């Protein structure tokens, strides 16, 4: 029983992390029709940022670190979008290739700066002691992480569905040319959404640090999970990213615990089913 509950919580916390990663990916894809393959690298940058900051300043608050890393990664993403991606308007393939190239550059730069060994990120001290509920022991940090993902989901939902900015973004997603014609500054929205997506990924990388720790190849581990989540949930759909994240979190965690060698195959089964029977994803409106 303890096994199922602990693994259940682990899968929820992984799902939360995946949501922080894939919601940004999905938003960017929805608005810009851009498969941002740098997304895993943005996540990894956040984790390395946390590893350095929290180990050099002992007891640094993880929320402050996440905010700082989010802003830093958002700035990098914004620069990249302004300097490179805007030059490749209407060239989908070129944009994808450039984001792929950028992911190689970032991951190699991380390897150069931080070396090949994995660097653990400390769990915040006030969240280290386990929580007891009904006689079961839970690692507090993971519970908090699930809460974070839910809070982020609510904030994003309010931003997209209930604000003027969100209305402009939705207009851009549905019909970019019409949105331009009625005076919405779509290319500024592109930059903003790209920064937002990158920033969430960076902050997610910080929050994931205590669980995953920073290591080279973290980006290559996370990106396919994000891709599978987005393919499963439906590209461009926030709800799809949320549901897909938790589905994949559960499947991957239990798969790794029960059949460690086949976890990757198990991961790919739901994807095949969804592609076979509902190619636009569970909650998607845009055909991929």
């Amino acid at each position: 029983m303890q096994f199922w509950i602990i693994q259940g919580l682990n899968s929820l916390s992984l799902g939360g992390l995946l949501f922080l990663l894939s919601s940004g990916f999905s938003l960017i894809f929805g608005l810009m029709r851009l498969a941002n393959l740098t997304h895993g690298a943005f996540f990894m940058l956040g984790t390395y940022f946390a590893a350095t900051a929290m180990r050099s300043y002992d007891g640094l608050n993880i929320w402050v670190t996440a905010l700082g890393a989010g802003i830093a990664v958002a700035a990098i993403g914004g620069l990249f979008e302004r300097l490179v991606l805007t030059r490749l308007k209407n060239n989908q393939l070129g944009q994808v290739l450039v984001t792929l190239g950028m992911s190689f550059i970032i991951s190699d730069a991380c390897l150069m700066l931080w070396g090949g060994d994995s660097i653990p990120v400390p769990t915040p001290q006030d969240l280290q002691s386990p929580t007891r509920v009904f006689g079961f022991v839970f690692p507090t940090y993971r519970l908090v992480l699930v809460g974070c993902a839910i809070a982020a989901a609510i904030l994003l939902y309010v931003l997209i569905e209930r604000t003027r900015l969100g209305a402009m973004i939705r207009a851009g997603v549905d019909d970019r040319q019409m949105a331009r014609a009625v005076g919405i500054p779509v290319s500024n929205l592109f930059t903003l959404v790209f920064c937002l997506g990158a920033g969430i990924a960076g902050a997610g990388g910080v929050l994931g640090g205590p669980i995953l720790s920073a290591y080279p190849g973290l980006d290559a581990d996370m990106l396919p999970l994000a891709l599978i989540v987005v393919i499963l949930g439906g590209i461009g759909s926030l709800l799809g990213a949320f549901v897909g994240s938790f589905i994949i979190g559960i499947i991957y965690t239990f798969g790794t615990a029960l059949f460690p060698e086949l976890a990757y195959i198990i991961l790919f089964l739901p994807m095949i089913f969804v592609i076979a029977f509902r190619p636009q994803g569970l909650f998607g409106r845009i055909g991929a």
Partner: protein
Amino acid sequence: MKWIGAALLAGSLLLPPIFAGDFYVNLASQILIAAIFALSLNLLVGFGGMTSLGHASYLGVAAYISALLTSRYGFGHGAAAFLSIAGTTAMAAFFGVIALRASGLGFLMITLALSQVLWGLAYRMSNVTNGDNGIAGLTRPSPFGLSLDSPISFYWFALIVATFALAMMTIFVSSAFGSSLKGVRDQPRRMAALGFNPWLIRWFTFVYAGFWGGISGLLYVYYHKYIHPTSLSTTSSAEALLGVIAGGSGTLGGPAVGAALVLLLKNYVSAYLERWNMLLGLVFLLIVLVMPTGIVPGVSRLTARLRGGPR
């Protein structure tokens, strides 16, 4: 003009074993393998308009199957080669059914996800694939009793296979089927209206490209006598894609030139510093931003202009 070019090419392919040392002969063999791989990817990217970021799956899986069958299960090279190509082609048939549910970016994301799954499997399933240590101590086959262990004999072997592969892919592309493939790339709706089945044409091309990707994987594992999960990684797929795009996708010889350039760059750079991945990324940015149509179309446009032709 065309004949001079062909003669120069033939000369440069036939000369290395006579004049050059082992290092260059080996480099030339690697270039031939990379060229077959890039040409097979180009069937999808250039002629089919399907940009795959998971082509390393076919190279890697064919290499792994052959390595496992010969080293662990005591198969002969002939049977192992047959089974690995059959297995790889069957996998391409299956992956094609999945990936071709989507097109464009969706296709790209699905092929990437599928290949990452295989990469993860090669790393994690260490009691079968030996994980990060890779499988070492493999042997080269000796077709018709001829040993391929010396660099020169392997070069001839690779040259024969590469020539055959290029011929087969040229026939494929210039056949009536190849025309229908280009039609489906450019005008899928009109092709469907004319009674063609775009899905089937794409799927068959996908399988054919997987087949030749598998052949290059066999040569790859014969050449290195070693296989490691990195040959399944995104970097491996991306190198081939860079070769295709740098050389000029949709041209017949371009990807071979591009693949040769990528390989030479990689070898040259790796001799001096360890930052190959970063350079690969930078070259990607450079090619896409500066030379989006590739080197071979760029150069042929230049020669056309020099000869005073139109444009």
